[in-house]
């Protein structure tokens, strides 16, 4: 059966299936979908299986699924000049036989809501009207927001939408901990941190207003160093985000943090955001050993001082340090078993700032959620992405984006090589 599928696919690909009207000619990867390994090389709980929807797409960041099942992937590096790929699996065998692309900008964010596809470069947000065939006019999107900070570090703009006509975008702070000299041992933190005026938070824009920027957008939440994974939870009507915590505790403060402490700290925090939330960066961090929010040493912290950190927005769950949460998705489908309903999947891209301690992450976890709060322990859901070695360069795959299909399937993207998995249950 697998061989048959492969043959069908090979024939389809070699015939050069044309994209639909309006979308550009197909993009073909060099080695299309030849893998025969079980579950596309990842491990899943019993009863689940994964197919490789597409492979070797390049730097596949976030993804979104249309109501007709088409998957749109945002690339952080252009593939044959395209920054957005549409993967279509018309025969429903879990493998996309029709891949086309458009959008000549790189980036991370992509979302679909109420008949529009939204996508971001590192400084702008666009939207494209969707019709029955897909994106109607890929060359002429509306510009929703522009001029968002792109200063090298933490420049990706993740997006999510609520049900009231608002779009939320992360603007990461181009900094580790707002020091006078970034990443420099002994350099103090600036207080107040001037970066927070235009970054280090989540901004809210209207979906129906063109060309917005800082002057007419709203800083919805602040004190977030960098967020890549974020999602709107329609059940409780709140925004949830995963923060990437700061680096360099052990390297810059070995007298306060052992090598192991530096690998574990700070926590990667999971926040439920309210309008005006201040999550504490750069002044505070969550200490995994002390189990509370403490002052950062650049701001006078000594690993005991709490200072103003008690008054900041507290996270609802804390993960071990540096695992880099890049994807967050509340699962609202019914395909997966009852325990997964309304819980959160989080894709941890995988650490680098644990070295020389072993790296961590490189997996997708599941967090049961009830009424907007964790209702049990988190567990690893999908693993084996790194294969032999959890290492940022040598890892075979690094999970990044998560999306849910109309039939309740879960899609996972990898930005190391560009594999896309479709995870299903009991089929």
């Amino acid at each position, binding site marked *: 059966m697998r061989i048959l599928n492969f043959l069908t696919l090979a024939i389809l690909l070699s015939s050069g299936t044309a994209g639909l009207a309006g979308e550009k000619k197909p993009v073909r990867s060099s080695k299309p979908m030849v893998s025969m390994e079980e579950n596309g090389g990842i491990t899943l709980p019993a009863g689940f299986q994964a197919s490789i929807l597409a492979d070797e797409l390049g730097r596949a960041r976030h993804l979104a699924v249309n109501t007709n099942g088409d998957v749109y992937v945002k690339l952080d*590096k252009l593939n044959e000049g395209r920054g957005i790929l549409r993967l279509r699996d018309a025969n429903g065998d879990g493998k996309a036989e029709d891949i086309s692309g458009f959008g000549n900008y790189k980036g991370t964010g992509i979302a679909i809501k109420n008949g529009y596809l939204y996508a971001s470069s590192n400084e702008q947000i666009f939207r494209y009207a969707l019709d029955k065939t897909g994106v109607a006019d890929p060359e002429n999107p509306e510009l929703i927001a522009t001029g968002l900070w792109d200063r*090298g570090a933490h420049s990706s703009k993740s997006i999510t939408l609520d049900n009231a006509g608002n779009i939320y975008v992360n603007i990461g702070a181009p*900094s580790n901990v707002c020091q006078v000299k970034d990443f420099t041992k002994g350099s103090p933190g600036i207080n107040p941190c001037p970066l927070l005026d235009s970054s280090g938070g989540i901004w809210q824009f209207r979906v129906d207003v063109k060309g917005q920027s800082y002057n007419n957008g709203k800083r919805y939440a602040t004190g977030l160093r960098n967020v890549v994974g974020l999602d709107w939870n329609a059940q409780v009507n709140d925004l949830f985000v995963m923060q990437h915590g700061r680096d360099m505790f052990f390297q810059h403060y070995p007298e306060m943090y052992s090598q192991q402490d530096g690998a574990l700290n700070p926590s990667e925090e999971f926040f439920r955001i309210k309008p005006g939330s201040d999550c504490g960066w750069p002044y505070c961090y969550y200490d995994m050993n002390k189990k509370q929010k403490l002052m950062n040493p650049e701001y006078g912290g000594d690993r005991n001082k709490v200072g103003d950190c008690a008054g900041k927005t507290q996270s609802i769950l804390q993960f071990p340090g540096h695992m880099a949460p890049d994807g967050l998705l509340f699962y609202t489908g019914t395909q997966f078993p009852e325990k997964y309903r309304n819980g959160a999947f989080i894709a941890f891209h995988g650490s680098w700032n644990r*070295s*020389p301690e072993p790296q961590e992450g490189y997996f997708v976890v599941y967090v049961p959620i009830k009424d907007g709060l964790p209702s049990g322990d988190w567990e690893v859901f999908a693993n084996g992405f790194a294969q032999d070695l959890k290492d*940022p*360069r040598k890892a075979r795959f690094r999970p990044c984006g998560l999306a849910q299909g109309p039939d309740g399937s879960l899609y996972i993207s990898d930005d*190391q090589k560009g594999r896309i998995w479709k995870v299903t249950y009991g089929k």
Partner: protein
Amino acid sequence: MRYHKPFFSVLLMTTCSFMVLAQQGMPKDVAARGKTIYGAVCMACHQSDGGGVPRLNPPLSGSKTVNGPKDKLIPIVLNGMSGVEIEGESYGNVMASHADLKDQEIADVLNYVRNNFGNKASLVSAADVKKVRIKLKK
């Protein structure tokens, strides 16, 4: 590492000129000093194998800059670097200035990275670093 083998060292010392020594290896104590500095200052970002981190910290392994002219490499250590694009890949993290290291320490660590991780390049001396430091101050 080849230059750690006694046989190879003897062979080098008896048959090769100083230039060849500089090209292919370095004394053990220099290598050890360089490794210590690498571990304390560089490894967090560039990783234990010099592979760096995609999108964030550029690799040292196989890098044209690392294996290239000393007078282009030394200023990066002294001034730091940020927002670079190397061979079509962007790297977002900030590299701090390491001008606080002594000339000899910079030479040691550069010799370590220029002769490890598959790299092979000429030795850097404290005098080389000093020369660049003076030039940058002008």
